[in-house]
């Protein structure tokens, strides 16, 4: 599977190609960033659930509180 789908809007030509060296470096950074963001999101959800549990509120009560 090629890394990049590249369309030229002027000619309509589609090129499927591998990353250039610079693009591959950027992709490595992007993947690391996305993994960190996904982890942070999981941590945030876990913390939220923990806090809700600590407060002893139901989901409806939390929704009412935040509305």
């Amino acid at each position: 599977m090629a890394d990049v789908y590249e369309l030229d809007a002027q000619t309509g030509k589609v090129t499927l190609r591998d990353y250039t060296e610079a693009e591959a470096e950027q992709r490595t950074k992007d993947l690391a960033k996305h993994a960190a963001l996904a982890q942070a999101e999981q941590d945030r959800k876990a913390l939220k659930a923990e806090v809700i549990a600590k407060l002893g509120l139901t989901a409806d009560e939390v929704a009412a509180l935040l509305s």
Partner: protein
Amino acid sequence: MALPVTFVAGDVLEAAQLNSNFTYVEGLGGLTYITQATPSAQTTISINNCFTSAYENYRIVMNVSAFAVADGSVGLRLRVGGVDATTNYVSQRLLGTGATVAAASNVLGTDEMYFLSTSTLNPRTNAVCYDISSPNIATTTAMNGSFGLADAINGVILINSYGAHTTETAYDGFTLIASNNMTGTIRVYGYQNS
């Protein structure tokens, strides 16, 4: 010549009249289709030469067929001459689901603008539409639009997102950078300047 030029049966249509009518229709405004990309299971989708001096503002609409993973994300980078710009982005996202609203800035950092989040369920419920202001002019480029989806895991989600690229450069295209494979159709339209 009064426009539009109209005809009745038997009239001769001259080239100048036809061209004048084309000009007249262009002057009415609205959106003009530029191009569409149809990537299949790709993470990096670049559309080159879609931003030109013909239009100041553009609309990008995406119809999603499939995402490889749930909870992934897709960002947008501007590009020129086949090279992405990877600095000087800012963005703000407002997310609403049920009665809960959450706001966040630079959710994908400052090396791209947030475009959408992925879900593997009910991909056809995704609605993705963004306007891009002045990408082909050597000034700040801004993007504003919304994204929504409805599925059994996430519920109904509406996201409004704004992004800007503060480097004052004229760009001729953009790249969508997905954390994982995506399949769909991305159409680009230009707003008539009239």
